[in-house]
């Protein structure tokens, strides 16, 4: 008798649970609609990240063609050789990408990257912001295909920020100028892309 009562209670609870689930589904849809809902929860940035990687790879292809003419410098005691190769590679890449403009590589990912930079900035204590600002070059107008000014320091990119940005191949690096994100070719010293968008707010 007791077993029967328990079974009845369980059946009632199960029925209530099913009803609640059905009501809870949008538009009273059946469980067949679940895969659509799951698809929507996939990282919306995934496609933009993939496209960004493709654009980086395309840049590397262009770069590879240029480096056929200016092969990598082996270690040398003659800094003139290093300097000449850097300048030649930079010019070669600029020529090969003569029509490149700001945002070509960052592309639709720009909005996300701007937010990452801004959020990272806002997450930092004031003293940290001050220390970063004291190092970052200010007031430079940098354009794609220009060399990064040789006498201007390459300000440190905070590791926490780097960890949130898409990984880059060894040939490229992110840099900050006036809290704007740049893509720089490490050996050619050429600016590959500049993040366009709202000027980040400056700290007092």
């Amino acid at each position: 008798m007791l077993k029967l009562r328990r079974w009845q209670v369980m059946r009632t609870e199960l029925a209530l649970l099913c009803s609640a689930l059905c009501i809870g589904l949008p538009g009273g849809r059946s469980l067949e609609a679940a895969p659509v809902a799951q698809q929507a929860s996939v990282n919306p940035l995934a496609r933009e990240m993939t496209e960004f990687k493709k654009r980086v790879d395309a840049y590397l292809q262009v770069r590879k063609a240029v480096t056929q003419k200016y092969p990598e410098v082996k270690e040398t005691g003659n800094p003139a050789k290093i300097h000449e190769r850097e300048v030649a590679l930079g010019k070669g890449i600029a020529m090969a990408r003569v029509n490149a403009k700001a945002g070509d590589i960052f592309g639709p990912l720009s909005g996300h990257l701007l937010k990452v930079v801004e959020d990272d900035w806002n997450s930092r204590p004031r003293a940290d912001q001050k220390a970063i600002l004291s190092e970052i070059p200010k007031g430079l107008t940098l354009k794609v295909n220009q060399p990064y000014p040789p006498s201007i320091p390459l300000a440190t990119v905070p590791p926490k920020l780097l960890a949130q940005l898409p990984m880059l191949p060894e040939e490229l690096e992110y840099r900050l100028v006036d809290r704007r994100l740049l893509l720089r070719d490490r050996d050619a010293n050429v600016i590959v892309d500049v993040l366009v968008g709202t000027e980040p707010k400056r700290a007092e």
Partner: protein
Amino acid sequence: MRVRRLVLASALFLGISTLGAQAPTSKPAAPAPAAQAAKPAIDISPPREMDSVRFGILGDTGTGDRRQYEVGAQMTKAMQIFPFEFVIMLGDNIYGSERPQDFVKKFEKPYEGILSQKIPFYASLGNHDDPTQRYYKPFNMNGERFYTFKKDDARFFALDSNYMDQQQLKWVEEQLSRSNDRWKVAFFHHPLYSSGARHGSEVDLRTRLEPLFVKYGVDIVFAGHEHFYERIVPQKGIYYFTQGGSAKLREGNIRVNSALTAKGFDTDNVFMVAELGKDSMQYQVVSRTGRRVDSGSLPLMPEPKSADDKPRSQ
């Protein structure tokens, strides 16, 4: 005995320094350039142990100005008494323009006396350095931004603290985990701990690196960036030195009463020499005028490092 003294005195008089012979070493002492021998003595002691790993430490050097040359001259003198085998550079190796002539003016000339003795330099990159410096042979970076090398039972890890990306962090962990060396020494530009009023501790970088250093038993960390000398109170079983005052000087920049400071010196430029022995490290810091401003002996810490030893301050 008298004859021996006489010979020694004659050798000194002739300008042949025998100071290097005071060192209890089986390693060859570098011969002194004749011009150096006549200069006033420098306040530095010879190495204490036989066959220890001896090296010099320079940071923030590449100005090409008088101060850099004066520190270079003192270090050349020091080599006669403390015959170091190599020099590590803590970044900002070349300030400003990096034309070929800048490498001569800001590196080759100031350290001519050391380079001429075939003493190798091992550089790390600072925020003023173009990463293409890694191709410059006298910096011995093997074309890499970050690299490792071994000297007897000590392993050195040169890191690029300007750009601590995931690839580098992965490499650091791999290399540290592989090392069974008695001494593990990391050097790079930005200090994880500093009492500098201008920059201070690089907390962001510390969050990434310190857990690896503690986990894999790094013993000593050298950094620059701050243009002064500071020995930090040991943090989590690791000795930290900031030595970014080998050419530039940020006078009076060490915060007074900082809980981090074991010893600070911010009134003149310096260089440093160190010796890694069987159970301890000896260090000496010498100013541009040849005055010893810090020295001591630090025991090799037992492993693993104590995770409970919390840092005292930011």
